[in-house]
């Protein structure tokens, strides 16, 4: 029995965790696991080549976090035609039933949670908030759009086209900047937005490295204590940053769980052809998302930093 | 091989076109330039230079290093565009934007730096810009080159020049010795010029035998009625083949002298500024 894991990159700690989870479970169940990844987020062709390799290698199942959720579909179809079970991890394909199953975080919900938390924490001040949006990339990959739009929804801002960021007209948004999801991009983006409007008091970040970079910029501007930074991911360093007061709140996802569930599903399918089932009421199996903060806000469910630390990317 | 004096007498006899300044009627010049100016930053390479070339003559251009001889013929062959001045070919004002323009009206030039593509073969270089195509469909439709023929012709031209140490016609030019390269450039110009041939120091790197061949070639070309501009620092060569000598000094034409009327040492004295040229020659 063999399985493939195809991630967007293998440099983002999120996917590293995912791979750890898959490897541990595969070792436990006696499955050979081959891992593939794109070079950067959005490297679609490498993923197609990886699927083709899995077909050539005769794998039983493929776990994939697609870089381009619509474009990957024909390749996925080829794999399924070859009798391989394909499970989308973390990011649903478009259409979602292009994969045999999807084990994912609801990224929109993840964004919505931090949006609600920020709005609730600010209270009445939310009406006068000045928001900086630190997004992923100009190519607007779907994770980035979902988290961004989820945040705005949760904060109570009109989305415009929910499939795009940057088209909102709400004056509370100071601007969108791209960060490439790392510290360097986060810092430069934050500096640029702060120069534009030094009064910014809410910062949405696509992930925790970008948030750490943004915090460095705020510190340089001497504004680190009067700005709320919110983020998504829930990795261990990110949760630690919540504890240290760098990040106000972050939405935690569970990549390790996704991957190990995926491997189990492939094992089951290889054994007797059973297909995994969806979470009731959803089109996919929701691996859950939780808001991690040590300043819980009314009306927004959250877990504490200690719980977050225990679960971080578990 | 003929003896020198025979050949000399011979070419004088064959010479066409009136070329003697004090002699018979002068026909109209074929190529003229008036008031050419070319500046490179702070350096003035051409300073209101004039130039006249008559049909069928060999015009030598002599001058010190840096006098502006190369700049002058580059302006004539379209390789540089002068800042001011005009050039006429057969009385018509011409304005060359590229060497190819000059080439198309029949002016062929051997540049001092040779203008060869080092990585390409000798044959490729000789036919650059006017390649031969295969006869028939292959050539017309598929525009296929006729390599065999080009190689054959290239070989012939080089043999005519006596460049016999080239072992392989498909050798790339970068593997040739300095003199061999110069031979290739001269052979190219000789093969394709139809109106004027300009040679900027064509024998500088050539051996005794090869230089002799080039001089013979110049006489042959004149025999065909085509005028030649020859830049050279070699006074005996200049005085052997030239019908008139254009002395260039400090970016402009100092005078034009008749090699029969002046001695070599006069020419050298004019070009180095040791003597003033006589009024009638200036």
């Amino acid at each position, binding site marked *: 029995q063999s399985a493939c894991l195809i991630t967007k990159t*293998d440099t983002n700690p999120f996917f590293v965790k995912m791979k750890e989870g898959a490897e541990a479970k595969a070792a436990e169940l006696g499955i050979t696991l081959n891992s593939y990844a794109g070079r950067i987020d959005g490297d679609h062709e490498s993923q197609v080549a990886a699927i083709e390799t899995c077909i050539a290698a005769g794998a039983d199942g493929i776990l994939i976090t697609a870089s381009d959720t619509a474009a990957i579909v024909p390749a996925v179809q080829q794999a399924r035609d070859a009798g391989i079970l394909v499970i989308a991890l973390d990011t649903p394909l478009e259409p979602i039933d292009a994969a045999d199953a999807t084990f994912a975080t609801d990224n929109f919900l993840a964004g919505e949670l931090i949006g609600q938390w920020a709005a609730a924490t600010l209270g009445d001040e939310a009406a006068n908030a000045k928001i900086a949006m630190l997004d992923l990339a100009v190519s607007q990959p779907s994770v980035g759009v979902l988290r961004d739009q989820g945040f705005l929804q949760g904060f109570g801002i009109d989305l415009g086209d929910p499939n795009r960021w940057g088209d909102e007209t709400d004056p509370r948004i100071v601007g969108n900047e791209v960060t490439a999801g790392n510290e360097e991009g986060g810092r430069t983006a934050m500096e640029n937005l702060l120069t534009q409007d030094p009064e910014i008091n809410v910062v949405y970040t696509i992930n925790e490295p970008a948030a750490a970079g943004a915090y460095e910029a705020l510190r340089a501007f001497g504004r680190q204590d009067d700005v709320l930074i919110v983020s998504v991911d829930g990795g261990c360093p990110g949760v630690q940053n919540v504890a240290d007061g760098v990040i106000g709140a972050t939405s935690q996802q569970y990549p390790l769980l996704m991957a190990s569930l995926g491997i189990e599903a492939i094992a089951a399918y290889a054994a007797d052809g059973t297909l995994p089932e969806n979470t009731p009421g959803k089109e996919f199996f929701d691996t859950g998302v939780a808001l991690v903060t040590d300043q819980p806000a009314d009306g927004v469910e959250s877990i504490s930093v200690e719980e977050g630390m225990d679960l971080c990317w578990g | 091989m003929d003896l020198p004096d025979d050949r000399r007498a011979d070419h004088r006899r064959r010479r066409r076109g009136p070329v003697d300044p004090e002699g018979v009627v002068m026909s109209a010049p074929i190529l003229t330039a008036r008031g050419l100016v070319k500046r490179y930053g702070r350096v003035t390479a051409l300073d209101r230079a004039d130039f006249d070339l008559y049909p069928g003559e060999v015009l030598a251009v002599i001058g010190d290093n840096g006098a502006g001889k190369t700049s002058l013929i580059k302006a004539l062959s379209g390789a540089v565009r002068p800042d001011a001045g005009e050039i006429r070919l057969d009385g018509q004002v011409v304005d060359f934007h590229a060497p190819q323009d000059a080439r198309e009206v029949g002016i062929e030039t051997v540049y001092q730096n040779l203008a060869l593509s080092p990585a390409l073969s000798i044959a490729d270089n000789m036919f650059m810009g006017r390649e031969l195509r295969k006869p028939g469909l292959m050539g017309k439709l598929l525009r296929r080159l006729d390599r065999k023929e080009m190689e054959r012709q290239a070989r012939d031209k080089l043999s005519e020049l006596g460049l016999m140490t080239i072992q392989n016609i498909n050798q790339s030019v970068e593997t040739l010795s300095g003199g061999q390269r110069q031979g290739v450039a001269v052979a190219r110009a000789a093969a394709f010029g139809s109106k004027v041939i300009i040679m900027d120091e064509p024998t500088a790197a050539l051996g*005794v035998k090869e230089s002799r061949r080039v001089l013979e070639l110049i006489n042959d070309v004149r025999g065909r009625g085509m005028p030649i501009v020859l830049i050279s620092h070699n006074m005996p060569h200049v005085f052997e083949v030239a019908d008139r000598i254009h002395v260039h000094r400090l970016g402009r034409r100092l005078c034009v002298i008749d090699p029969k009327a002046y001695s070599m040492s006069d020419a050298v004295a004019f070009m180095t500024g040791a003597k003033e040229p006589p009024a009638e020659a200036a």
Partner: protein
Amino acid sequence: MTETTGPSRDDYESGLEGSSTDVASFEGGRGPLYRIHGFLHSTPSAVPLIVLVASVLTFGLLVGERFFSPFALTLVLQQVAVIGIVGSAQTLVILTAGIDLSVGAIMVLSSVVMGQFAFRYGLPPEIAVLCGFAVGALCGFINGVLVAIMRLPPFIVTLGMWQIVLAANFLYSANETIRSQEIAEQAPLLQFFGERIEIGGAVFTYGAIAMVLLVLGLHYVLTQTAWGRHVYAIGDDPDAAELSGVRVKHTLISVYVLSGLICALAGWVLVGRIGSVSPTAGQFANIESITAVVIGGISLFGGRGSILGMLFGGLIVGVFSLGLRLMGTDPQWTYLMIGVLIIAAVAVDQWIRKVSS
């Protein structure tokens, strides 16, 4: 003065009399080593071909028949198809001593135009494809004019174009992917190059066939026509080429336009390969095409190399990637290995040329 006065010719030249007038004849092969050298020297694509064959055999031994099967070997061809086509465009530009960083962006923009013109504006797919080619040619033309007429360095021109075209691509496409199913229903022409011929286990997509035909065609043009010679001459020494009668500007512009057209073709083939039209595709086309060109033994300084070498270079990378993936190597190790192999391939090339010369 009389004719006798001027020293018409120095007497020493009389020594020339009787010297031989033969042309040095070409010395035939002096043993096998000389033949091999002559072959390697006159056939610059031979070394990458040898490396390619050696690497196929090595992986065949290491991985076994999962790799050494018609299916897997033709899979390499499919995977390399897009890069091979883009690499052809890159080869043309690099032969003129330029470099084209905008190839990937032009490819993607062309494919997006083909898709969007068919879907957003409802044009017949044939017209949409033509529009895609027109856009590719236009981008190439702009590059060409900036390089040839304005005399800007190709690196910087195409660096700028890359950013411009890519941003235009995202702005115009609004980051929308056109899904495969829709294309199959409404404009199957766009997926033309995804069709395939199966012979035994071997699978040849039209895209892979197109790539091979394109490379062979360009090989003919580059080696057997005047235009091809001019491309080499310009790469070798543009000043010398200009002086010896090549219309450098015209030729350069034609090279960039052709490069743009080939990128558009690559965009079409890309749609066939990935099924859908995605504005985020092709981000590594630049670096991969340059890698293929350089492993293929084509000089980045222009004027030297064969487009066949580029094809072999692309296939070498394809074989290594697939082979290492099939061996289950960790992706980072794969990148590391490919890095080592890039250097090793060129080192071997250099070494062979040196030893044999």
